């Protein structure tokens, strides 16, 4: 049959020369024809050469282009040809694309698994990206609902010596700031705790600020009802008490009754006239329900009293930099002019949005970056899927090129396929985002400002779609270019085609990219894990997870007398102790982690500071007897407060260990005497002098009168308590003085109750209040454990999300490694077979695959570490107590990824080891 083979190859050659690919059946027929012709010639008696010549002539005179049409009719070419014919005959561009899309859809219906996987991966990416972008947009990017919000800034005091970076302002200094020409206007407020008592309704605590009359003008917001504070009116009016309430209060407490305007509201026992209701969702500065107009002149207060917050609007054309510079020179002037009160104090100007977002802006940006990485990894995975698929269709594409399909038509077809996939993925992802977002918002354990307004909107969708469609089309195009550009060259040694080699390089790059990004994500989540565990391990000095905490405020006319206030607070605590189930109870004006008032002090017997402002500053706390016991704080020396430490007995004080170590170098604290100068300790704090028994003839001091400087008073140290944390995470505990509430009363105290169970504690508080202070509402009761977890909620949330993303990314990267090496082993069967034939042991071949994958993964890890370095700036703002280049996190993440990738390349390695050398050599 040698002649048949010769004829066949001749026919194939000629057919190929005319640019055709004929089905095997047709070739068989043609070969049969030539055979018959040859045989017939031989039968006639001609020579073999002549017979052959006749056959060749018949072959040469055949115009194979005649068979073009019919080659296309063969069943396994039908689909491809149909599209091309339609395209060619139609000529119109739109028909081209539409038929390509229809064809793509049909093909996916026939082989759905690839399409489903791709669409799912894309949908995941789009869904995650859209959700996170919506959240970031709603919380961070959206402008504040005030007029020209980028011109609004907040002001804060700083003092590097005292370690203060974000302190409230003194009202007198504020008035000087306000006068600067760089500000158009500025408003300031402070936060009294206010009880609202309406006839016929339960007394309730309302979050209130007493604010200068121009706040709403500065913000550029007006009331929805009523006139609000008079525009252009004075900052304060002493004898006209007006307020404005929030929409929320109006709806919940007054059933949106419009006649609330003009009605008096009894706040702390004093009637304020309601002048307006603010628009819905307006609660500036945060969660405020009542805005009282200031009743006293700020410039006549003390430069030493730091208790106010402020917002300012920049003058038109002025920048924050100019404002900061103006304020800096002002503070320098004030420090020179008023050294006693202003030396060392600076002022910070912070844009309003940054102030409002606090932790969340950097956290959300990190999250946004993380989800972006996840999206990229998803796209890389899809790209490798598309690449593999394109290469498996090499033959089909080659046929179509041979049949005259122009590169343009092919590209249109491949793009149509990518477009169908990306649109489907985008639809899936968008639906997922729309469904997931409300769920996520409702499940959020922390209150993130402005989050409740997040709703998937056009911008988020547009972003998701743009990314997905752009990426998919790009990665759909790359395989096309790879295929069209390269020659199909057989590498004799490995049996690989040139196009496959190019594809393998691209695929390898994709996998390295995936590993790098997964590494970055995993390391970030590792850092957050470390942050959270550092937070959880921070010593607090107390053991109070189940201690119930609530706040009680005694204010108004009923409690104008300080003695009564102190007495009633004491009575409440005593009453609680007597209730069933209560183990210990106490009160304090500051809870752990909160920073107390700061003030100077002296030690009797030691030289006083040369000037009062040189006196060391420590924290001032006021706690009741029983407080330390209720929280489980331990004593290091001496005793804690007792009910016998009364208002009229000698002054006593407890210091914390930090204080004792810093100021009592000999270790002897108990018995020493501390002296204080009264200075302003908050707006309402009063010292021993003011509450000493006074002559019956002298009138009691006005409740809101500014404190005056008085001669120092002495307190004997009766005990040293082990440090109870009085600073936020990451900052050291500060030395502190604890006074007894009986001698150093505040209107508001946090009541802490340790009881058999939560219900007993809450009941005890309620009963005690009913008996001792019937008109006084109870604040929200939470356990200390709940409060503490709220403090750590943001980093924990971020950690959870990043861990989830990191795990997902790791999985995708491992899948990428698996895919690459499976495919690569399949392609290199011949090379592996040769190796085996030449004497390599299967284990060596397997090790070769593993080694090559390890190289890829290690490259990816190195790239991932570089990415982390680049992101260090962003990461520093969300982690505490751990550096972004923390070795533990890096090593853990890298190891996990390496292990995952190595596991992923085990099946391909095994397959490589099991290649049958004989079959492998025959594979080509």
């Amino acid at each position, binding site marked *: 049959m040698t002649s*048949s083979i010769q004829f066949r190859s001749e026919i194939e050659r000629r057919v190929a020369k005319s640019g055709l690919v004929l089905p095997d*059946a*047709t070739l*068989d*027929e*043609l070969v*049969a*024809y*030539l*055979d*018959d*012709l040859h045989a*017939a010639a031989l039968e006639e008696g001609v020579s073999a050469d002549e017979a052959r010549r006749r056959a060749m002539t*018949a*072959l040469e*005179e*055949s*115009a*194979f282009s*005649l*068979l073009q*049409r*019919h080659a296309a*009719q063969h069943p396994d070419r039908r689909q491809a040809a149909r599209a091309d014919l339609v395209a060619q005959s139609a000529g119109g561009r739109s028909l081209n694309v539409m038929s390509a899309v229809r064809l793509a859809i049909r093909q996916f219906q026939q082989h759905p698994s690839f399409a489903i996987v791709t669409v799912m991966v894309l949908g995941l990416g789009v869904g995650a990206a859209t959700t996170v972008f919506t959240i970031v947009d709603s919380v961070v990017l959206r402008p504040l609902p005030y007029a020209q919000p980028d011109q609004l800034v907040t002001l804060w005091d700083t003092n590097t010596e005292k370690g203060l970076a974000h302190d409230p302002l003194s009202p007198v200094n504020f008035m000087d700031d306000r006068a600067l020409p760089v500000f158009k206007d500025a408003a300031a407020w402070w936060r009294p705790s206010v009880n609202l008592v309406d006839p016929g309704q339960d007394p309730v605590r309302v979050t209130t600020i007493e604010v200068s009359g121009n706040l709403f003008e500065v913000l550029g917001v007006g009331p929805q009802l009523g006139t609000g504070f008079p525009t252009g009116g004075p900052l304060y009016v002493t004898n006209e008490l007006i307020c404005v309430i929030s929409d929320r209060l109006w709806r919940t407490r007054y059933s949106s009754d419009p006649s609330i305007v003009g009605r008096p509201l009894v706040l702390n026992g004093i009637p304020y006239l309601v002048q307006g209701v603010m628009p819905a969702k307006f609660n500036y500065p945060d969660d405020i329900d009542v805005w009282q107009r200031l009743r006293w002149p700020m410039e006549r207060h003390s430069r030493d009293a730091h208790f106010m917050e402020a917002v300012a609007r920049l003058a038109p054309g002025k920048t924050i930099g100019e404002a900061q510079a103006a304020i800096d020179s002002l503070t320098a002037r004030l420090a020179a002019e008023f050294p006693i009160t202003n030396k060392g104090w600076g002022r910070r100007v912070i844009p309003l949005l940054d102030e409002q977002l606090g932790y969340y802006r950097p956290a959300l940006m990190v999250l946004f970056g993380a989800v972006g990485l996840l999206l990229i990894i998803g796209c890389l995975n899809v790209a490798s899927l598309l690449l593999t698929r394109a290469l498996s269709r090499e033959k089909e594409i080659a046929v179509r090129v041979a049949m005259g399909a122009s590169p343009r038509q092919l590209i249109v077809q491949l793009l149509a396929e990518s477009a169908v996939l990306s649109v489907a993925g985008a639809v899936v992802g968008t639906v997922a985002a729309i469904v997931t977002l409300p769920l996520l918002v409702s499940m959020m354990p922390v209150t993130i400002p402005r989050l409740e307004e997040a709703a998937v909107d056009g911008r988020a969708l547009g972003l998701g779609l743009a990314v997905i469609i752009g990426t998919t089309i790009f990665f759909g195009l790359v395989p096309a270019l790879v295929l069209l550009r390269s020659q199909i060259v057989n590498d004799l040694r490995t049996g690989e085609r040139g196009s496959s080699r190019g594809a393998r390089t691209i695929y390898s790059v994709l996998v390295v990219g995936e590993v790098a990004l997964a590494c970055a994500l995993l390391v970030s989540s590792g850092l957050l894990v470390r942050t959270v565990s550092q937070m959880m391990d921070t010593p607090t000095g107390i053991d109070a997870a189940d201690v119930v905490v609530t706040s009680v405020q005694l204010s108004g006319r009923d409690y104008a007398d300080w003695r009564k206030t102190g007495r009633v607070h004491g009575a409440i605590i005593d009453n609680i102790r007597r209730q069933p189930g209560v183990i210990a109870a106490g009160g304090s004006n500051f809870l752990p982690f909160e920073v107390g008032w700061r003030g100077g002090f002296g030690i009797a017997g030691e030289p006083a500071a040369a000037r009062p402002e040189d006196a060391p500053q420590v924290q001032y706390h006021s706690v009741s007897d029983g407080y330390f016991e209720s929280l489980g704080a331990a004593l290091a020396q001496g005793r804690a407060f007792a009910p016998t430490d009364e208002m009229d007995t000698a002054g006593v004080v407890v210091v914390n260990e930090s204080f004792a170590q810093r100021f009592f170098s000999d270790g002897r604290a108990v018995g020493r005497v501390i002296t204080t100068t009264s200075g302003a300790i908050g707006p309402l704090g009063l010292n021993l002098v003011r509450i000493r028994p006074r002559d019956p003839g002298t009138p009691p001091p006005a409740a809101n009168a500014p404190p005056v400087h008085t001669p120092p008073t002495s307190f004997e140290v009766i005990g040293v308590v082990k440090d109870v944390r009085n600073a936020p995470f990451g900052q050291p505990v500060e030395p502190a003085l604890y006074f007894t509430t009986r001698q150093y009363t505040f209107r508001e105290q946090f009541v802490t109750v340790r009881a058999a169970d939560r219900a007993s504690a809450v009941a005890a508080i309620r009963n005690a209040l009913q008996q001792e202070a019937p008109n006084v509402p109870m604040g929200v009761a939470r356990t200390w454990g709940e409060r503490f977890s709220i403090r750590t909620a943001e980093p924990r949330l971020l950690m959870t999300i990043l861990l989830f993303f990191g795990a997902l990314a790791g999985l995708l990267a491992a899948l990428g490694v698996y895919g690459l090496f499976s495919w690569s082993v399949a392609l290199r069967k011949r090379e592996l077979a040769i190796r085996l034939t030449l004497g390599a042991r299967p284990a060596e071949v397997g090790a070769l695959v593993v080694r090559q994958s390890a190289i890829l993964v290690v490259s990816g890890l190195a790239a991932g570490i570089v990415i982390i370095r680049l992101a260090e700036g962003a990461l520093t703002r969300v982690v505490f107590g751990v550096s972004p280049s923390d070795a533990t996190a890096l090593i853990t993440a890298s190891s996990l990824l390496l292990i995952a990738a190595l596991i992923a390349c085990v099946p391909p390695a095994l397959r490589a080891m099991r290649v049958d050398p004989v079959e492998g050599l025959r594979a080509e």
Partner: protein
Amino acid sequence: MTKLLLDRSAIEAAKKGSADLFILALLDDDDHHGYEIGRQIELRSGGDVRFTMASLYATLYRLEERSLIKGRWVEKAGQRRRRYYRITDSGRAMLATQREDWARFIVALTQVAGVRPA
């Protein structure tokens, strides 16, 4: 044997137009495979009508597409497999029509152009 005295292009056109007729007529008698069809037509026309390999099969495929003939693979003992073609019913109908048309055409040639079979 009909020696057509028309000029070259007309004859070529006529040949092309009659290719279907030749094949259908041949297959009307009996089933044949490709080579045999070409050979028989060449023989019976005295060499006047000859198909090249490509044009033969192009025509066969075209007829098969229009369901006028049907091909099937046959493997006889000791021989290579070949594809045999058979005329279909619609092929026979077409053949009858074409015979009629050509007969009338020849009558017209005879009566008008004075063409006479040799």
